[in-house]
């Protein structure tokens, strides 16, 4: 129990109150003189932390720039596998979450406790939608074998990848979280505690939002395949050498065509291409003169997907981290802890959240919109 002696605030309040000429409220740590000093410290600390985040991500942007500059054709080829509609939706979702987060800060400053919980809940929900959509994207790619580096499976036209249930696997943890949140919500209604209701409500909603994201993602993915499926008749095939820098859109379409070819047998078109070998009729003479290296392989496209997974993966980890701290804020907000003298935590988490959005603002065009 001696440990308690050392945890500052209670000890301080109990024993050493005479040190101070003014009241030290519970939200003001003992080593700060006043609310503003505490706020300024926290804020500078957060900005410095954001500096470390910026430099942390800069490593991956460096790798991106390096390889894009070296192999632009790889990036064009691979970008066509990314569904820009999903990327755009996710951008919108994150921007909206930034709006609600900024609004949450305002609510905290104005003691609008109810609104604050709502805004934080909305931010959390958006984060969950984002992750849901991302799960669809990831699982879709894994099924096609669009894996990082060494594990990249060269793409065959018309091949659809087997159904491995990756999406279901990605949904396991969110499902568990949802069940837990639901149980908590039931509990909070049972004991009629407004505080617990205010916490469990947003949490459950956010957990469900993940599945909204999943359905949204799947719907759009299917739609994309349906509309572009007919593009197939171009007989473009993606594994043609040196032939990817025009019309990459159709290649994407080709790869995405949903013909439920779950088997691994190469599609006829591909077979034709195979026999066609070097005399590829779809390559115009200018391109033939300067043959470009085949990009559809682990040393080329694999590298792009490495970068793609590293960047988006680390970003997703940041989203998850953000969700954890936002949940913590919801608890504090439901306890009505924030006011115009003490809103630092909301403000600082907000800064962090906007930075995560900030990074995505760059990732989206750099990864999805290469033409």
């Amino acid at each position, binding site marked *: 129990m001696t440990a308690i002696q050392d945890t500052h605030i209670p000890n301080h309040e109990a024993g050493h109150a005479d040190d101070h000429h003014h009241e030290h409220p519970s939200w003001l740590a003992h080593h700060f003189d006043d609310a503003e000093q505490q706020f300024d410290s926290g804020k500078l600390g957060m900005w410095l932390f954001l500096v470390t985040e910026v430099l942390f991500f800069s490593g991956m942007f460096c790798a991106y720039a390096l390889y894009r500059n070296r192999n632009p054709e790889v990036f064009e080829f691979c970008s066509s596998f990314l569904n820009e509609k999903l990327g755009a939706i996710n951008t919108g979702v994150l921007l909206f979450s930034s709006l609600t987060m900024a609004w949450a800060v305002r609510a905290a400053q104005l003691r609008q406790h109810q609104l604050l919980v709502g805004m934080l809940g909305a931010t959390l929900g958006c984060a969950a939608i984002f992750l849901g959509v991302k799960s669809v994207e990831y699982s879709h790619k894994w099924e096609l074998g669009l894996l990082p580096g060494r*594990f990249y499976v060269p793409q065959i036209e018309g091949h659809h990848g087997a159904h491995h249930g990756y999406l279901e696997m990605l949904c396991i943890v969110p499902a568990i979280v949802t069940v837990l949140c639901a149980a908590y919500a039931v509990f909070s209604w049972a004991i009629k505690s407004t505080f617990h209701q205010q916490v469990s409500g947003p949490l459950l909603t956010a957990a469900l939002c993940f599945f909204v994201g999943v359905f949204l993602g799947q719907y759009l993915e299917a739609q994309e395949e349906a509309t572009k499926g007919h593009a197939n008749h171009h007989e473009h095939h993606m594994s043609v050498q040196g032939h990817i820098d025009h019309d990459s859109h159709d290649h994407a379409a080709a790869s995405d065509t949903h013909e439920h070819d779950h088997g691994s047998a190469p599609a006829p078109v591909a077979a034709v291409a195979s026999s066609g070998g070097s005399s590829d009729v779809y390559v115009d003479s200018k391109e033939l003169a300067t043959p470009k290296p085949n990009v559809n392989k682990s040393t080329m496209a694999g590298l792009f997907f490495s970068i793609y997974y590293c960047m988006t993966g680390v970003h997703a980890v940041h989203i998850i981290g953000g969700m954890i701290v936002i949940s913590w804020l919801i608890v504090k907000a439901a306890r009505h802890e924030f006011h115009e003298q003490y809103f630092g935590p909301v403000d600082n988490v907000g800064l962090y959240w906007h930075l995560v959005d900030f990074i995505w603002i760059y990732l989206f065009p750099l990864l999805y919109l290469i033409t």
Partner: protein
Amino acid sequence: MSVVDRPLASPGYSEADSYPTHHFLNHSHGILSWALTLDHKRIGLMYLVGVMSSFALGGLFALMIRIHLWNFQDGWLSNKTYNQVFTLHGAIMVFLFIIPSIPAALGNFLLPIMLGTKDVAFPRLNLMSFYLWITGLVFFLAALSITGLDTGWTFYTPYSIDTQQGGAVLAATFGVFVLGFSSIFTGLNFIVTINTMRPPGMSWFRMPLFLWALYSTSIIQVLATPVLGITVLLLSAERLLGIGIFDPKLNGDPVTFQHFFWFYSHPAVYIMILPAMGIISELMSVHCHKGIFGYRMIAYSSIAIALFGFLVWGHHMFTSGMADVTAVVFSALTFTVSIPSAIKVFNWLGTMYQGTVSLNTPMLYALAFIFLFTIGGLTGLPLGALSTDMHFHDTYFVVAHFHYVMMGGTLVAFLGGVFHWWPKMTGRMFNDKLGIVSAIIVFVGFNLTFLPQFVLGSRGMPRRYATYLPEFQPLHQLSTIGSLTLGSGLLLALIVLLMSLVNGKKAPRNPWGGATLEWECASPPPHDNFSSAPTVGDPYDFSNIEYDGKTGGYVKRA
């Protein structure tokens, strides 16, 4: 918070300079009161024990290396083990000892006191950095026990991707990642503390130079360490997922790895040396009883070193296949950053000039620092020059260079600092005579170990080799003898410190005559640092500080 003054039993001390019966060490009791403490002084002490233990571990590996190299072949380690031993020596010394040594241990203890505040801005974060450090330590020990890491402390690709010791690479890179964040959070905490918590009167230019040094160090920690984080993260992804970004087999670019690594690791050498320079500035003025010469120049040059240190990382890569243009640019920039370091050396010499030098243990370490650091810095120049580095790169010349700056510089300054502030931290005086002996043995042993290595290197002895040509044997044996001497000197230093805890005299408030704020609080300090407000004055104004024979310490004339 009360400091209970009690009349003293020991004769010769006045009651005015009595010793606190209640201080941070006995403020609360039990293991948990340390493990969960938020007190920067306790965290600093825990770091001190931690980094010293890591140093002992790394030192054991070093002695294993030196003993192995006694004969030019058939040493007692297998080639494979040799690779593991030098890797662990380097990695432990760099990541576990030297980077946290001064900032996290001494800095944590002293920064709030010197600044006149109760604690750092984020005490919880401070404790968390300590536990991150512990986590990193655990992972390093795991790397050691899994199989032994054999990549060298630099983890260069592609070897680190291909080596059999995959588990060890993963454990160690994860350890480095965690240690990096420990270091970042310490730096962040210090920057915020200095920016927002300075008490009235403590303007920027009244801060002790040690704080300027810690501030510049923190800037580097915050800016450079995240890049190390992403580098080792990508390296572990390389091993786990085969991402190929640094792997030539997958069309990746291993030279890029070196850019990433040195973008951190060159600034990191300034993380190591800047705090050491800060300590020397304090020691020089206090033990010469004379205001520091060129305060502003020293302060500015710390910041300059921190910022310009980011411009030269390429000098570690001259032979890696980097482009000629870049090599020339980096070489030229390397020469410019040595200027601020030289400025400091001149300032310290200027401080000693016409000072009343007390040749006690801390001062001897400080003098050793100036001598050794100057050699280390000067030998950096031939390494930074493109043409000569082609010859010196990856030889013992480089090994000697960085040991002169890291060990002769940082470690020696760290020891000087530990001796200097030991009375403040523990409330006990150590045996100064034995301390002086330890400093002399360390100095002699150090030079005996590393001077021969300059000669070896310039004659072509490559680094990281388990065997060598017979003609190098005499110099290697000299070096081994030196390392044993050095080891015994360090052991003596440790014994002197530990002995003081048992039978040391109680320390007065201000045993050396320092003018900075930490000497105004009791030894050891109370839980909240100051029982009454310190008056912030010029930290280097010694004019009204005089020796008080009764207390055995110094007092401020009213």
